[in-house]
């Protein structure tokens, strides 16, 4: 049953309402504040809204996905992505044509989610999603995009061990299965990414797409080794580094004991004294990850939990993969 309700001035989208949500007169969920979007409904509904909005923003068919090859030209129409303009044809004929692509073979994608205890944290509880909540919605959206392209999509969740494994499939029930597994995975303990990434190899026999979503609060060498191994196997690898804004910029009381939720490690300090140095450390850590990934041909993007899902999706699927 379709119904339209409202909470404040924002539209309320119930189950089965994605069409209403993404209509031209409605706000696009992919561009709203993630915490507000999460209030609009369950994971499934909200994710559909996000994806519809995201695809509308791309101005192209959802079927023109990541695994496509050139098919033909057509006349440019307002709203088309300028990047698809055929500049050589423009130079020769002085006319605007855009390139069209058609489906190639189906892609196999594996989404890998870190569900460790550190992911279950928000710098502003109630006002911002935890890193895991944010990652779940982002992965759900990505899975929906992929499945709509008939790409086989699977899921692995892990903390200090692999918790859930959903083999990649392109069935239309796959997305709901993925959602169920995402939500049913319990909050974990420590973090060990390497076993999970090894497990991906078993699931992806052919070349495919691997997306690792984590706060990367673990020792990089093993994880990087596993990621490089995936890359050597011909997989396209994307690392989404999820951070809370309060992890990027240190705030807090006059003095506090900062306790690591996954280890006994703690540090006593005054944020006002250390904020600058901490910020530099975070920047260098991000730079190191980015550099290490780039050297290995791995896509790396850092997203914070206050980034609208649409931006994060674009960042992850479009810019990082280099596909259009």
């Amino acid at each position, binding site marked *: 049953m379709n119904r339209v309700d409202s909470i404040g001035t924002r539209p309320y989208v119930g189950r089965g309402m994605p069409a209403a949500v993404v209509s031209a007169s409605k706000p696009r969920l992919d561009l709203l504040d993630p915490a507000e979007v999460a209030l609009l409904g369950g994971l499934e509904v909200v994710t559909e809204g996000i994806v519809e909005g995201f695809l509308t923003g791309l101005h192209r068919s959802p079927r023109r996905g990541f695994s496509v090859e050139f098919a033909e030209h057509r006349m440019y129409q307002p709203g088309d992505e300028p990047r698809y303009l055929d500049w050589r044809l423009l130079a020769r004929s002085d006319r605007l044509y855009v390139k069209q692509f058609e489906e190639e073979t189906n892609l196999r994608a594996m989404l890998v989610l870190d569900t460790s205890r550190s992911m279950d*944290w928000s710098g502003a509880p109630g006002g911002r999603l935890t890193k895991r909540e944010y990652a779940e919605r982002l992965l759900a959206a990505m899975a929906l995009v992929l499945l709509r392209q008939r790409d086989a999509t699977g899921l692995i969740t892990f903390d200090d061990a692999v918790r859930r494994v959903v083999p990649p499939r392109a069935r239309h029930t796959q997305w709901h299965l993925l959602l169920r597994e995402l939500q049913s995975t319990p909050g974990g303990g420590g973090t060990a990414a390497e076993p999970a990434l090894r497990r991906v190899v078993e699931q992806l026999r052919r070349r495919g797409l691997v997306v690792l979503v984590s706060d990367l609060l673990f020792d990089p060498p093993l994880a990087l080794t596993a990621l490089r191994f995936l890359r050597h196997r011909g997989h396209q690898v994307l690392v989404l580094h999820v951070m809370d804004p309060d992890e990027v*910029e240190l705030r*807090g*009381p006059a003095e506090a004991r*900062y306790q690591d939720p996954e280890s006994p490690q703690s540090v006593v*300090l005054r944020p006002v004294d250390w904020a600058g*140095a901490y910020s530099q*450390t975070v920047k260098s850590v991000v730079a190191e990850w980015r550099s290490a990934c780039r050297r290995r041909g791995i896509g790396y993007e850092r997203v914070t939990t206050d980034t609208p899902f649409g931006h994060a999706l674009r960042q992850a699927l479009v810019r990082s993969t280099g596909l259009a």
Partner: protein
Amino acid sequence: MIGFAAPWALLGLVAAGIPVLLHLFARREPPTVLFPATRYLAETARAHHRRLTLQHWLLLLIRTLLIMALVFAAAGPSWPNGGVATHAPAALTLVFDNSLSSGAVSDGTPVFEAHRTAARAILRAARPDDALWLMTADGVPQRGSAERLTATVDRLAPVPQRLDLGEAIGIAREAMSGERRPSSTVILSDLQITALSAAPGSGPVVAIHPEAAPVSNLGVASLAPGRQPWGPEGSRVGVTLSGPPGRTGAVTLQIGARPPRQQLGTAGSMVSIGSGALPAGWWPVRVEVEPDELRLDDTRQTAIRVSDAAGAAWRVEDRFLATAAEVLLQNGRLQRGADLTLGALGPGASIVQPPADPAALGGLNRALAARGIGWRYGDLAPGSATIDSGPILGRHSVARSYRLLPTSGSSGRGVLVTAAGAPWAVRAGEIILLGSRLEPDWLSLPLSAEFVPFVDFLANRAVRGELVLLDVAPGDVVALPDAATDVVRDGRVRAVEGGGGFRSGETGLHFILSGRDTIGVVAVNPDPRESELARGNAAAIGRLWPGSRVTSTVPAASAAFGTAGRAELVGLFLWVAGLLAIAEALLAGVGTRRQARGAA
């Protein structure tokens, strides 16, 4: 060596330990915060620990030094700097004692000039932001700049007035009471004992006296011309000299332009000098001693009234009054005549007593009214009373008396004697009304030794209008008689209000006129206490003015401002404190700025 104007403020140094104590003992377990990126924090702490520790200790040191600098500044530090004296802004009242005693000459130098030199030095040392007052013997504090007050000092001269230093300090403190700057009173005086008194209020006092010791002085302390008016045969004046006990000097009496009379006098005792016979009238009298180191108290003046005895008539029936008149007649204080009627209302001047027969009282009142007299007799006063107007008459019991009532429209002035607070003897023009008959049945006076002098007073003084002889010090206010209309001095006439106050800063004789008649004189003479030049010691002064400082004029400026050739270091310490505050702000703000940059 460094010195402090307010050393007690150094107790504030204890506060300098507060940052250290807080650092050492006020540490407590901070709240625990779950933070996934603790590994980044630990990494940051490892990399920056040394720098931040150094920054913390530096901040602690700066804050401690900042408190110490402020405490030192509050304590008013100063440093010897070779005699160039400076001082913090101050409020200062300079009490310049130019009283009569400042005219003395000690060791060839006038005391007044020593005061003036010291005053100039003090005013030269004043800063533009000092609040300055100058007060002289006139007792009026005058505020002004150092230049203006120096000009005033240059114009000053010794005056014959007295300056009570205790009162002067009180006035100075009152003048400076609204000042926020630290205030002090600086006295330039010979500090003679007779000028010292307790001072109201509180505050620092610096008493500066001349280097030279006070000189021995002989002056005229008093001049008593006796009861007025004198008869034509003349009388004697009593002269008292002030000075060191046993010191003698020649005393010269000059009455008008008559030849002077001299006699040897001794300090502390009275010498009596006869005038010889004098014609009727007012005579100026001048007494002098030989000139000495203090000239202003060597002369004293007064005036005497010489008049012929009144020509009076009396009745023998008034037994007691007639007896008194006969005594006065035999002594030349009365003569027989028709100018004055004693005991009844006569055609001219009269001393009227109530009639023995009450039935005659109405006629007497009508006669008084017909003469325009503003008083009349009323009923008999109930009960007995007592004379209570001392200066004219002693206490005598009054058994019977009639009430003396002012007539409607009259002012009620002219009361001479009262009994139980009610008028008993009044004067209206040349008529004196008595409430009782001068008989023992009515009052006890006729039986006392005071009776004849009282009749003499009535006949020769009261009925002629009161003679007023007032001896006052310069600047003192004296009440003039009700009938006074003018005051004349050296031929200069000055209109005055009868009953009003009169004040003169100049010594000399001021004759009081009532219309064209001279009814008295105000003799303005130096206060004899100014002749006592002995200086009070520091202990006595300290008891009178607690916390005061007594010094000589040599270090006058430094003593006045309490800086004794020292450089004030308050400004330096405040500068240091300011620099430390800036450094503290910069250092404490490093973390904040880094945080801001990190956020950006």
